């Protein structure tokens, strides 16, 4: 029973991290109807970037993250305005395939620079417990992941609901033509949205690097997690994204409890496929 309790807690905390992995994808899908197949790789790139900056240059994780966020924002902005924006109005496949091509390139660039060996960002937090009770314990890094994820989700919610830029985003996702008529530069909105998505991806990337090991091909796995979060939570809904992350985290943990550790990821995928089959619009999708 205690094991189960522990797994449920871990599942929920892990879910927070998954939610943040899915956050950028949800944002992009909600606003431009695009599934960014390079999302996982862009995130892992930021993990590597944080690792290099933290270990070899600044020695400080926060400065490393700050620089990574800035660089990734620029990367996201240009990927969107130079590549994706040009094919957004040419049907669903070209943008999808552009991001797929981007994913191929990014993965191989990482392989070329860092090799296929697993890496990690060492941190003291990984081995510590924040809370220890006779029944369960809470890992420090998991708790930090969860708290940061909630903060990022809330900030994003604030940006989208309360700022001028947020209004432009919501207008664009509602009706492109109408927002252009009232003077919104929708292509610019898309590019800034991608930059914003890269901010969340960079933070998620750093947290993943501190929590798990990763390789240049890990991005694929997190892409599917991100997609899972977004599908379960409903595309484009921020609160749904958090719930989606928690459900995916719980599904994995319970899967590992009932079917064995080895089936942790497998069970997560099965839950995703079942939801895709029966409720492809997501569990928490706003009804149109």
């Amino acid at each position, binding site marked *: 029973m205690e094991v189960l309790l522990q797994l449920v807690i871990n599942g929920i905390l892990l879910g927070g991290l998954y939610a943040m992995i899915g956050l950028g994808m949800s944002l992009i899908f909600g606003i431009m109807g695009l599934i960014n197949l390079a999302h996982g790789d862009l995130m892992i790139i930021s993990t590597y970037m944080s690792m290099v900056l933290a270990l070899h240059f600044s020695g400080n994780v926060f400065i490393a993250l700050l620089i990574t966020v800035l660089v990734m924002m620029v990367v996201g902005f240009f990927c969107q305005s130079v590549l994706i924006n040009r094919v957004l109005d040419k049907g669903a*496949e070209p943008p999808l395939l552009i991001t797929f091509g981007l994913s191929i390139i990014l*993965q*191989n660039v990482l392989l070329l620079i860092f090799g296929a060996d697993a890496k990690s960002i060492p941190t003291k937090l990984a081995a510590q417990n924040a809370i220890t009770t006779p029944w369960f314990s809470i890992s420090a890094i998991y708790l930090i992941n969860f708290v940061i994820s909630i903060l990022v989700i809330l900030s994003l919610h604030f940006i989208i609901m309360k700022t001028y830029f947020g209004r432009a985003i919501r207008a664009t996702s509602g009706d492109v033509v109408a927002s252009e008529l009232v003077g919104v530069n929708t292509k610019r909105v898309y590019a800034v949205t991608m930059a914003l998505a890269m901010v969340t991806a960079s933070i998620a990337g750093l947290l993943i690097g501190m929590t798990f090991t990763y390789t240049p091909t890990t991005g694929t796995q997190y892409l*599917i997690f991100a997609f899972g979060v977004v*599908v379960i939570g409903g595309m484009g809904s921020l609160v749904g994204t958090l719930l989606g992350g928690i459900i995916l985290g719980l599904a994995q943990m319970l899967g590992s409890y009932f079917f064995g550790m080895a089936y942790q990821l497998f069970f997560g995928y099965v839950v*995703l496929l079942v939801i*895709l089959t029966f409720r492809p619009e997501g569990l928490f999708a706003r009804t149109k």
Partner: protein
Amino acid sequence: MKGMERVAITTALGGRAALIRRIILATIMVLLITLPLWASEGVVMIVFLIMLYMAVGQMWNLLAGYAGLVSLGQQIFIGLGGYSLAIITEVYHLNFLLAILIGGVISGVFALVISQPIFKMKGIYFAIGTWVIAEALTLYFLNWSFVGYGVGFNIRTSYDLSTNYLYFLSLIVGLGSAVLVYIIMRTKGGLALMAMRDNELAAEVMGVELYKTKLAIFLVSAFVSGVTGGVLYLNISFIQPTAAFSIDWTVAAVVIVIIGGIGTMEGPIVGAVIYVVLKQYLYNFPGISMIILGVIAIAIILVAPKGIMGTLQAKFGWEIISARRSTKNIKQMVHPDCG
């Protein structure tokens, strides 16, 4: 030959062009069949790979280019084909040709099983859904004792096969897949497919049975990909889950078809030649060839979305193998009153 004769009779460019086209096709056939007689073993191996990758590309093109089903899960069938070969020859000690055929059938059956849920997913969801199934299969095989967990199998039956034998197998699979696509696209079902891709709703209103047509295409593609996977693994002669069900197979298919020309029959051929030759040329730098191919693919989507062959066709009206029966027929299809 009947199909080619029809090309000759109905081509818009007249008899002369058709004759040239037939001569080109016949020359290519003769060159391919006699290849082991005059080319070095290295060249034969490269054409072997071109044939198989072309088949992989043809099958992805059939789904994405003609049926509008953008699959990111072709590795499911390549992997199942490869594993069928490994298990049937290593565990049951049966003939490998039988094993390759059974691999195709198993792929087809698996496609049938997943078709029910996967066809509920549309567009992007279909793409990711197929990918998730492939990832789930990888994990399942990694934990399945019957398939030797992550250790996999050596496929020893392939050790005493000659290069020429493998080459002729690949020729059957490669040319077979191209001919199959050609035949499919010239049937009523093929026209229905293209109608469906261009406008699903309109096609359905006109009486195209979407579900059946898509399902048939999905099964054919799974079967051929499974067989191709079998022959590919006859050459690789070692199988292991993460490689067998790796997205890399679909990456190859996508890159080949995008570069060659999506929705054209020659596209996968041209794409496969570029893909295999570049990969062989940069064999010692595996990452670099993929980066170059990725950049080319993105550039093509941006600049010439129809790919090399599609752009040539649009510019010069030049097709070696055409899916269309004739221009006149197509006009009749679009405007039934004109005929």
